């Protein structure tokens, strides 16, 4: 099913025409109404009229999270405060939160995008959606809510936490769609297993995961635990919240709603634009946002673009699952490593529970990487030599994935912290002072 066939299946020519019109208009609005953009354009010697083609977007300097922090709280708004009907802030995963303001029109677009995305994963008005994303300053809860209501599905706005209640509601209300972060999904699955509740006895038909990066291997784990397909949801507060891109049943990347967001991929170091198919940092421009237009916002998310018609019929560009963030990249002995690479290696081991923690230390002059992995009944052997063998095998798999020797520690089950929101995977104990 496709929610908005006209927009989701547009020909490339028509879409580019629409995008250019919208880009020109939003650049003008931003220049005239946001002092930050006026200054940015003037300093760079660029005028709104210089945007004659989509390619001309490259003339516009980037907007970063730091810029948004400096504009705290309302410095990026393009409309008077009274026209803003809703405020959110980012989760503050990487520092001080940033503010996002929405007009009525923005909420309409948000609902539309999320309705398209939920339709993509098979949600209809007959579904019961258990939304464990938090309702609050975090955009996750509301984004899913707006989309689900637009479709006409039944929403249970339970937010994160109250795990026992989550299970009870899932059973009693016949939840068909669960929206959850991968970490909380794992935690829920564990709790279900503890209560001897078989997921197959539930009415679940799909699980949507958002708010944190996860690997294909993690998807397989989650699907085998939930016995239903699991789909990826992408979004970020600064741009809108969830609904910027979602996966269709083909699961070959996330479709970006290009009539509202213009994606580019840049080399995070040289800031040069990269051709389609090359991996780099995703840069997004809002094409229709009224309250807070953002031009060339650096998301820090690492991915690549894939164009061409998808098997599902949509012509929207796809981004590959986010394989890391340019700021959660660890530099270990000069080598760039993303936690997702480690996760990928770990989950190649049968029976390994996807709970792990990466600890970076510098005992002497060299960085050391320790990976704590929870032992499971499948991994546990009565034989010391076998356990040491498993540890070695994990170390070798990680080594071949990242090119560095690591030390794997098997810890007792359920001893690594469980997360209700985003999991903290990396603990960097290195002295950051120079």
């Amino acid at each position: 099913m496709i929610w908005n066939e006209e927009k989701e299946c547009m020909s490339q020519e028509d879409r580019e025409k629409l995008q250019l019109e919208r880009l020109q208009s939003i650049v003008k609005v931003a220049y005239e109404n946001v002092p930050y953009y006026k200054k940015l354009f003037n300093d760079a010697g660029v005028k709104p009229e210089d945007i004659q083609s989509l390619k001309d977007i490259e003339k516009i300097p980037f907007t970063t999270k730091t810029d948004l922090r400096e504009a705290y709280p309302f410095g990026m708004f393009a409309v008077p405060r009274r026209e803003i009907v809703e405020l959110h802030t980012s989760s503050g995963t990487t520092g001080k939160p940033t503010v996002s303001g929405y007009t009525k029109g923005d909420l309409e677009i948000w609902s539309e995008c999320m309705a398209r995305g939920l339709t993509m994963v098979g949600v209809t008005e007959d579904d019961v959606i258990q939304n464990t994303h938090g309702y609050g300053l975090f955009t996750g809860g509301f984004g899913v809510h707006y989309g689900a209501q637009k479709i006409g599905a039944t929403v249970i706005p339970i937010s994160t936490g109250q795990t026992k209640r989550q299970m009870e509601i899932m059973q009693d209300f016949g939840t068909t769609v669960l929206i959850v972060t991968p970490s909380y999904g794992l935690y829920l699955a564990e709790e279900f297993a503890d209560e001897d509740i078989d997921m197959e006895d539930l009415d679940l038909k799909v699980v949507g995961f958002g708010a944190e990066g996860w690997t294909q291997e993690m998807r397989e784990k989650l699907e085998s635990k939930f016995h239903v397909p699991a789909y990826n949801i992408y979004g970020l507060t600064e741009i809108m919240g969830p609904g910027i891109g979602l996966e269709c049943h083909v699961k070959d990347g996330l479709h970006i709603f290009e009539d509202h967001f213009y994606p580019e991929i840049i080399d995070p170091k040289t800031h040069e634009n990269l051709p389609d198919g090359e991996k780099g940092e995703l840069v997004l421009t809002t094409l229709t946002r009224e309250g807070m237009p953002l031009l060339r916002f650096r998301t820090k998310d690492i991915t690549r673009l894939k164009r061409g018609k998808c098997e599902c019929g949509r012509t929207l560009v796809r981004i590959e699952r986010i394989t890391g963030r340019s700021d959660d990249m660890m530099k270990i002995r000069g080598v760039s490593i993303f936690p997702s690479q480690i996760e990928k290696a770990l989950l190649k081991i049968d029976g390994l529970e996807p709970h792990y923690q990466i600890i970076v230390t510098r005992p002497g002059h060299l960085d050391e990487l320790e990976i704590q992995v929870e032992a499971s009944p499948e991994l546990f052997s009565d034989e010391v030599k076998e356990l040491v063998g498993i540890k070695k095998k994990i170390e070798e798999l990680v080594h071949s994935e990242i090119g560095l020797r690591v030390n794997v520690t098997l810890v007792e089950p359920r001893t690594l912290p469980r997360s209700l929101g985003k999991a903290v995977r990396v603990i960097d104990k290195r002295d950051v002072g120079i």
Partner: protein
Amino acid sequence: MKLKQLSIFLENRKGRMWNALDVLEKAGVNLRALSIADTSEFGILRLIVPEPDRAREVLEEKGFLIKIGEVIAVGIPDQPGGLNKILGILDKSSINLDYLYAFVEQNKNRAIVILHPEDIDAGIEVLKAGGADVLTAEEVYSL
């Protein structure tokens, strides 16, 4: 002739073994024999208890990682060379041992050796054929 043995995965951290044994104490489980295999990071606590399945249940409830495996118990005279005779039987038949541990039974002047050969059935066979006193599970649990 086979004996159930409980193996518990323990991180090499302060208090972990105490925690496990505390669970058993509270459940009124008495230990017949115990041994620990350790590395710098983790250990495996091996236990012989009269009710292995119940012990497993109470430990698992508390989140411990448990395996129940099989071992052989052999009674030997508590005197020099007692254990050697047993090892000799296994050696002659080229049966490799993963590990063993022993304890002395005070009032009977006998020691009991818990053996874990790579092939447990072959182990029992050659031990019996070699005249070793292979004990039944009931004999050990009721000590």
